[in-house]
Structure formats: structure tokens, C-alpha cells
């Protein structure tokens, strides 16, 4: 076997300075800019598929189109009809997956998607204006209030978007299949430049 311990890497170029934490290469950068874009790929991501009207759905209690934090701090996102994405802290994928009670449904899939998706967070008062340059969905409070979730194209990539404001500041989690992550990041960065966007480091959530 290989002597050096495995290092997990995000598909996004690390914003310097970098550090190794829990087997992941992370960005230790800290930005105080009014608009920030940060890689969140290392967060645990678990995909759940089950009947839309089944028991599992009932227990998750989050319909498609919305998101909610469970007591453990896991963000449960109704990412599709009969489809959920659970975001947990770094390295918690196994627990999060184990925490899904799959009883009583004919067919339930629980997959660790941590390595399959790029995840980033766009935070700041101008986050909606920035996103509106590359996404056709109405981002007003009326249609997509805090904890709204939808899937649409962002900069021509099919992207899951979750509005997850941070202390009252507009914030979006965006995730897409892994190999398009850098493209999505670059497109958002380009869109945000006029609002003074800066790349920020890793944190949870």
C-alpha cells in the first residue's frame, strides 16, 4: 500500500493559503469582503431517493423545493421529486447516511455523494444580483425566500441552488456535478466582480 496517507481534493482550485484538515486539502483564506464566494465541496453530501409520498419522505419532512436544518445541524434539501440531499460537516457522510431511517419504503437509495459534486457558497448583499446574471430563476423573496431550493441552469450547467441566508445576509449554496465545478465557480466569480466579490476559505456551513 501507499505510504503517504490519502489526501482528498476539491475540483476547485484552492484559494491560498491552503491547509490539510481531516484528510482534505482546504483553503484557510478569510475574506471580509461584502460579497464572498467559497468552496464547500468537502462538506459531507448524502443523496437519498425514496417514494415522494412514502415513509422516508415523511420522516425527512422536507418537500422538493425547500430546505431545513435538522437538530444535528445537517441541512436537508428537497432537491427533487422523491430526492433529497443532506449536507453535513466535514467527514460526517457515514453518520449522516446511517442516520437516514430507510424502514417501511419499498425502495430507498442512500448514496454518499461527497466526491461526486462540487459545492460552493455565495454570500453577500449582492449575492442575488450576482446570481441573476447567470441564472434565469426569479430570486426575489416572493418566489425564492430563505431555504428555498431549486434546480436550474446556472452559467449553462445544471445546478442545485439552495438559499441559505447567513445571519440575515443573502447566501446561496450551489452545487453541480464535480467536473463542472471550476467552470461554475469561475462564472460566478466573473459575475460578482462588479460587486467586489472575493474568494473565501472553507468553513461550515
Amino acid at each position, binding site marked *: 500500500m501507499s505510504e503517504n496517507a490519502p489526501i482528498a481534493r476539491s475540483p476547485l482550485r484552492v484559494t491560498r493559503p491552503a491547509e490539510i484538515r481531516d484528510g482534505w486539502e482546504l483553503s484557510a483564506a478569510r475574506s471580509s469582503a461584502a460579497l464572498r464566494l467559497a468552496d464547500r465541496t468537502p462538506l459531507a453530501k448524502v443523496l437519498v431517493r425514496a417514494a415522494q409520498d412514502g415513509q422516508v419522505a415523511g420522516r425527512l419532512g422536507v418537500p*422538493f*423545493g425547500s430546505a431545513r436544518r435538522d437538530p444535528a445541524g445537517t441541512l436537508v434539501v428537497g432537491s*427533487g*421529486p422523491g430526492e433529497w440531499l443532506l449536507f453535513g460537516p466535514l467527514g460526517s457522510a457515514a453518520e449522516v447516511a446511517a442516520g437516514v431511517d430507510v424502514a417501511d419504503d419499498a425502495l430507498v437509495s442512500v448514496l454518499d455523494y461527497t466526491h461526486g459534486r462540487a459545492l460552493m457558497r455565495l454570500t453577500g448583499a449582492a449575492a442575488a444580483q450576482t446570481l441573476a446574471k447567470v441564472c*434565469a430563476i426569479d430570486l426575489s423573496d416572493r418566489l425564492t425566500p430563505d431555504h428555498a431550493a*431549486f*434546480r*436550474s*441552469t446556472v452559467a449553462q450547467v*445544471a445546478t442545485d441552488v439552495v438559499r441559505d441566508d447567513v445571519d440575515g445576509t443573502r447566501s446561496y449554496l450551489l452545487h453541480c456535478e464535480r467536473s463542472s465545478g471550476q467552470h461554475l465557480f469561475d462564472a460566478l466569480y466573473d459575475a460578482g466582480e462588479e460587486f467586489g466579490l472575493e474568494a473565501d476559505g472553507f468553513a461550515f456551513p
Partner: protein
Amino acid sequence: MFQIPCGHCGLRNVAEFRHAGEQRRRPDPQTATPEQWRGYLYTQVNEAGWTRETWYHRAGCRRFVSVQRHTVTNEIRPVDTGAPPSAAALQAGADAGAPDAGAPDAGGAAS
């Protein structure tokens, strides 16, 4: 850019969808005559007016949705019944934007 009412995602731009064809019944592959089968493969009603068709919400919920569309105005009505669309939806050839024969082949790395 007209909009299509997706039963799961709500009104979305047509650009998020792939047109998957007129709805039609797939003949029994055991008994179909060549004429019947090729009628199913190739013949189109091609109505200038209301038509019942299937779209795939490629960039959204990834569900096949049935709608009625007026092919002159592109006005859309949701299909009341949840009647499943048909296999015509699946014809890879359904794409009209003539595919580039030299379609970018990603190295053809078929194991």
C-alpha cells in the same frame, strides 16, 4: 422563450427541457408489421394547432412531463390526466437540431 409548466418545478423556460416528441402508442414489438412499426418510428401528425407531447425536464427535476401545446402560438396547457407519455419520447433521433455527425466523441473510451 416560452415557458412550460413542470408539475414538479413550476413554470420554467423551455430551454431547460428537451422536446421528446408527439405522444403515440408503441406497437407490440412481437406482432407489429414493418409498416406499423415504421409508422411509429417516423410518421408524425405534425399538427398546426393543439398537440399532446412530451418534454424532458433535463435541467430541472429530470422528469418527463406531458403538456398540450399549440404549435402555432406555443401556448401551453398542462395535461389534466397524469397519463404517461410514450416511448416516442425516447427516440434519440427526436432531436431536430440536426446533430453534428462529427459529434464530439469523448475519446470513445468504451471499456
